[in-house]
């Protein structure tokens, strides 16, 4: 019998290695897998490359991981925010490398990784500083920039409901990067608020099929709905 549901966050993250690339779901606070990030801080892996849309909000979640000094490099589209003081401080002190990627390229580069695409030509950022030094090509009169996939060692996903085969549903706009990063990492871990028996999820409504998921762990819903904004 296959059972991808593990007993604890610690079990789910036990084998994360130093130097790993961690794909983290979430857009601002929505879909941010805070329980898994707290678990990763506890687990202790360091020298990490983190991929997320943002670079942490407030002092919890991703910001706490940065603050703990575990992250060497962050790949994201929108680091600077009103409450990104942890990132700002580390970046200005030269303690954190930043690769700034347009948001759609960030998503598509991870989609490409999950889909086995070696590289792709994308019109975004053509003629801008973010395309400097990159190969370009004119195709049917339009200009494109060559972009490479972003593969993860581990993906940390916040989903809503999971089953023992790793099938997942999400909640509202918390879905954002979840289904994309699920396919792009060697080991994709989903935190869920409830687990159901096989068949408990309508097959027509499963958003991430279990083939992309290695581990599922049930966590308690935070008291405050506002986990960050």
């Amino acid at each position, binding site marked *: 019998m296959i059972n991808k549901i593990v007993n604890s966050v610690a079990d789910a993250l036990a084998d994360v290695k130093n130097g790993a690339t961690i794909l983290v779901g979430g857009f601002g606070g929505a879909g941010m897998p805070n329980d898994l990030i707290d678990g990763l801080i506890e687990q202790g892996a360091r020298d990490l490359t983190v991929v997320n849309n943002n670079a942490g909000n407030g002092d919890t979640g991703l910001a706490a991981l940065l603050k703990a000094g575990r992250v060497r490099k962050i790949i994201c589209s929108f680091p600077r925010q009103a409450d990104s003081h942890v990132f700002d401080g580390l970046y200005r002190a030269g303690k954190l490398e930043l690769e700034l990627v347009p948001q*759609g390229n960030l998503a598509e580069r991870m989609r490409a990784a999950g889909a086995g695409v070696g590289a792709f030509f994308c019109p975004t950022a053509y003629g801008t500083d973010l395309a400097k030094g990159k190969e370009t090509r004119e195709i049917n009169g339009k200009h494109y920039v060559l972009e490479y996939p972003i593969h993860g060692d581990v993906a940390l996903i916040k989903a809503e409901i999971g089953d023992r085969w790793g099938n997942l549903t999400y909640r509202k*706009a918390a879905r954002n990067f979840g289904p994309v990063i699920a396919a792009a990492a060697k080991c994709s871990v989903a935190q869920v608020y409830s687990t159901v028996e096989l068949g408990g999820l309508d097959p027509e409504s499963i958003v991430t099929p279990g083939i992309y998921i290695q581990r599922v762990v049930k966590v308690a819903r935070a008291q405050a709905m506002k986990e960050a904004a």
Partner: protein
Amino acid sequence: MSADVLKNAETKPANPAKSYKPRSRDAIAARVALDIDEGAYVNLGIGLPTLVANHLPAGKEIFLHSENGILGMGPAPAKGEEDWDLINAGKQPVTLLTGGSYFHHADSFSMMRGGHLDICVLGAFQVSETGDLANWHTGAPDAIPAVGGAMDLAVGAKKVFVMMEHMTKTGESKLVKDCSYPLTGVGVVSRVYTDLATIDITPQGLKAVDIVEGLSLDELAKLTGLPIKAA
């Protein structure tokens, strides 16, 4: 309407000492909303463009897209009804209209890049007369850059509308020959809405669609520092 405004503007005596009153931010937003037809799929950028949502006519069905994976985005919820799993690109709580949908980020940006969005409305630091857009980075050495979805929207939407003040606080035109700020996209802007005028960017140069009352086309061109024709 636009031709009349233009005509009125031209017949009024030129008076550089403010014979005209700039449009308010809400008036600019209302003007943008006039150009959005029923059935359009529209993305409103963060900042000034979000005001456009308040001016969309209630009787028309217009689909608002949010880059984080929402189509059919509705207004802000009542106080106490906020759901932090349902936020917009500016990370403020929103609602979903009946018939709306959620999707993941790669799909959301495919909607942009794939040419499925009819209109996006963006703010800007500068727009060039050939439609180059600069709105993501001041280029200041100590600034932390952040780009978000601006570059994807700029190349993807069928029409890119820009909403901005016409002049900087120090009195320089934000419509320029060449952008001095780092570019977001090359030749992407279709139309610019400012507190002074609505201006089309065409292969034949800038064309004023309408101008605030009391400001002539010549005065507008002088303030802008670029040739502008009547549309």
